[in-house]
């Protein structure tokens, strides 16, 4: 799935790295605890989270996650956006809540990793 498709499905806004919206991603994960992302995530390219601080971007960078989707309409500050831009990480902002955002993406074919066909 192209990142631009995620934007469309979730009525999201791309806040950084808009030149990467045509990049393909095949799996996603969701968590508010970055500890869990570091401990359990394998090769998922998209992180869905309600947490909005610079450590979300740093965690994404460590895990080679290419797209961070912020739910519940959270708007990151300039520090977070500058960091994401510098690291080449696409930050999306969606008005949907976590459960709905994940459900819509899964329904559209974005798998969770171990269930990828």
């Amino acid at each position, binding site marked *: 799935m192209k990142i631009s498709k995620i934007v469309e499905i979730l009525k999201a806004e791309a806040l950084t790295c808009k030149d990467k919206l045509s990049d393909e991603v095949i799996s996603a994960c969701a968590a508010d605890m970055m500890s869990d992302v570091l*401990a359990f995530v394998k090769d998922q390219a998209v992180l869905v989270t309600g947490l909005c601080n610079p450590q979300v971007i740093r965690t994404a960078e460590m895990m080679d996650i290419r797209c961070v989707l912020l739910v519940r309409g959270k708007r990151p500050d300039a520090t977070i956006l500058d960091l994401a831009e510098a690291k080449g990480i696409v930050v999306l902002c969606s008005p949907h809540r976590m459960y709905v955002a994940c459900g819509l993406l899964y329904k559209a074919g974005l798998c969770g990793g171990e269930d990828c066909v």
Partner: protein
Amino acid sequence: MSEDCIRLEFDVDSENFASAGMASEAVKTKLKQLGINMQDVRRVAIAMYEGEINMVIHAKGGKATVDIFPHRVDMILADKGPGIADIDLAMKEGYSTAPDNIRALGFGAGMGLPNMKKNTDAMKIDSVQGIGTTIYMTVNLH
């Protein structure tokens, strides 16, 4: 230190939680530049980042030394924090002494030390209460 070793040293600052992870980022960037395989790069990055976060949360910062050899990466994270009272307990998944404000930032789930062990080929913890903690980790490169 042999000629085949690249040493990176960092002061881990605890004043600003937002800056935690800068040392890990720098190490990851260097390993990528050296053409190390991505799985090994990620293992080093995760172990180092977890350690760096721990130093910021529990120990008011410290010093990180990373030695990159052709076939392994050694990391030494030394702090002058309160020390770990019970290392076996601290190694249990889910055990954490992190305060609520740290959990609100997305950390303190009690996964840090076990995750550092999981992502390294060797790990040793020296800790003395009231003096500080030093963690030695090695990741073999493939």
